[in-house]
C-alpha cells in the first residue's frame, strides 16, 4: 500500500474522530444552556398562570358572593378594584375547606383551565401571633393567666406591634391594649372561675408602623377546643351561616370581634349579619352554645385566613417541577401574603 494512502486514511480517521469528539463536547457544554432556557420558559408560563389567578376576577366575576355558584373560570381578584392584587374577601373565604360553601379542588382545577398543572394556594398574614400560657394563679373567685405573646415572621424576625386582647365568655369580659415594641411581651388576663371552661381569648396585633399589616390569634380556655366539633361557621357576603353538627346543639350568643371592638350579631334562623367594618383586621366570629348541657365555643375569621388549599407538594418534588410564586395581596383593608405553588410535569 502506498504511503500516501496510509497518510490519507490516517488524516481522515483523525478528522472524523475529532469532529465526533468536538460534537460531543459542544453538546455537553450547551446542554445546561438549552435546559436553562427551557426552565425559564416554563417558569415564565407558571408565573403568568399564578398572576392570572390573582389579577383576574373569574367568570362570572362575582362568583364569590353566591354560595351556590361555581366559577366557570377561576380568578380571585375583586371586581372593580383600581389597585392590582386586591382579592375578593368572599372568593378567598370560599377557598377554605372549613366553609361549607368552599370550592373543592376539582372545581378550582376545572375553572383554572390548565389541565397539565396541579396547584396549592396559601394565604396568611404577613406575620404570626403566637401565644404561650406561662403561668396561672388562682384567686378566690378569679383566675389570672399570664401569657407570653410573640409577633414574628416565618423567618423568626420579630415584629413590633400593638396588641388588643379581648376575653369573652358568653359576653365581653375584658379588653386589654398592650404595647409590644420588641415583638415579644407578656400580659395577664383575669377570668371569673365560673366561666373558665367557656372563655376565649382573641388577640389582634397591628404592626406599629402600618395599620394595614395585621394578624390575630385565638386561645380557647375550654377543655374541649376541637374546632368545628359542634358547629361549622361559614362566613360569606357579610353573613355568617352556622351549621350545627347534631340536633342537640343550641346556639346562644354570636359575636363579631375586630381590633376596634365587639359586636353581638342578630340572628335570623341560623344566619347572622356581619357588620361591614372599616378595619384592616380580620373579623373573628365567635359562637357560644350548648351541646345538650355541655357548653362549647367555636370561632372563624372573615376573611377565612390563614388557609391552604390544593396539593401538598412536599412528597411530589421528585415527580414534578414545582414553581412557587409569592405575592403581597390586599384583602379588604389588610395586607396578606399569598403563595401559589404550581406543579407541572418533570422536564
Amino acid at each position, binding site marked *: 500500500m502506498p504511503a500516501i494512502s496510509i497518510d490519507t486514511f490516517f488524516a481522515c480517521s483523525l478528522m472524523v474522530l*475529532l469532529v465526533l469528539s468536538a460534537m460531543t463536547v459542544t453538546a455537553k457544554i450547551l446542554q445546561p444552556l438549552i435546559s436553562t432556557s427551557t426552565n425559564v420558559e416554563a417558569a415564565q408560563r407558571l408565573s403568568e398562570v399564578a398572576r392570572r389567578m390573582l389579577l383576574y376576577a373569574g367568570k362570572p366575576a362575582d362568583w364569590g358572593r353566591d354560595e351556590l355558584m361555581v366559577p366557570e373560570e377561576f380568578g380571585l381578584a375583586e371586581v372593580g378594584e383600581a389597585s392590582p392584587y386586591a382579592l375578593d374577601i368572599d372568593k378567598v373565604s370560599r377557598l377554605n375547606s372549613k366553609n361549607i360553601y368552599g370550592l373543592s379542588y376539582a372545581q378550582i382545577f376545572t375553572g383554572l383551565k390548565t389541565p397539565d398543572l396541579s396547584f396549592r394556594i396559601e394565604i396568611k398574614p404577613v406575620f404570626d401571633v403566637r401565644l404561650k400560657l406561662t403561668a396561672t394563679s388562682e384567686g378566690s373567685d378569679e383566675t389570672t393567666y399570664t401569657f407570653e405573646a410573640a409577633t414574628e415572621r416565618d423567618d423568626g424576625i420579630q415584629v413590633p406591634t400593638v396588641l388588643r386582647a379581648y376575653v369573652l365568655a358568653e359576653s365581653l369580659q375584658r379588653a386589654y391594649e398592650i404595647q409590644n415594641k420588641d415583638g415579644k411581651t407578656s400580659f395577664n388576663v383575669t377570668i371569673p372561675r365560673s366561666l373558665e371552661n367557656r372563655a376565649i381569648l382573641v388577640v389582634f396585633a397591628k404592626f406599629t408602623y402600618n395599620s394595614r399589616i395585621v394578624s390575630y390569634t385565638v386561645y380557647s380556655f375550654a377543655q374541649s377546643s376541637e374546632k368545628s366539633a359542634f358547629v361549622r361557621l361559614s362566613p360569606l357576603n357579610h353573613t355568617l351561616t352556622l351549621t350545627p353538627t347534631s340536633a342537640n346543639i343550641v346556639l346562644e350568643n354570636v359575636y363579631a370581634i375586630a381590633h376596634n371592638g365587639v359586636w353581638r350579631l342578630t340572628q335570623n334562623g341560623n344566619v347572622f349579619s356581619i357588620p361591614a367594618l372599616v378595619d384592616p383586621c380580620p373579623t373573628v366570629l365567635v359562637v357560644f352554645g350548648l351541646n345538650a348541657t355541655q357548653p362549647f365555643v367555636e370561632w372563624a375569621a372573615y376573611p377565612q385566613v390563614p388557609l391552604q388549599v390544593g396539593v401538598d407538594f412536599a412528597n411530589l418534588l421528585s415527580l414534578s417541577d414545582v414553581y412557587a410564586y409569592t405575592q403581597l395581596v390586599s384583602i379588604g383593608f389588610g395586607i396578606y401574603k399569598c403563595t401559589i405553588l404550581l406543579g407541572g410535569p418533570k422536564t
Partner: protein
Amino acid sequence: MKGRNSGQIRIIEAFLAIFIVFSAVAVSANLTTKSASSTSNGLEAIGMQALLQLDFDGSLAAYIAAGNWSGLRETLNLLLPAGVVFNLTVYDSQMRQVNMETVSNGAFNSQEIALVKYVCTSQSPVFRVYVVYLYLAVAK
C-alpha cells in the same frame, strides 16, 4: 514529490480543522455564562409589590409627606423578604431629593442591584408628586 506530500498536507488540514472546531467549542462555552437578569427581575417584582401595597391606601405618600422615614424603613423591612437589602430615595417633581435621612436596612455588597422606579401622589389637599427610587440587592 507533489503526490507523495499530499497525505501530509491532509494531516496539516486535519490539525487546522481541529483548531477551528475547538475554537468554536471555546466560543460556545462562553454562551453558557449565567444570565444575571433573572435575579434582578425577581427583585424588581418584589420591590414593586411592596410599593404597590403601600400605595394602595396612600400610605406611601403619607410617610413621605410626614417625613416618617423610620416608619417607611420598618414597613419595607417587614414587607420585603429576609435577605433583601434595600435603599430608598425619594425625589420631588423637580427631581430634588426629599429624604435627607437614609432609608435603608444595610449596605450593598452585591454586584447585582435592581432598581424600581415608582411615582406616587399625595392624597392630601395639596397635590404633590413623588418619584421613589428603590434599590434592591440580595444580601451576601
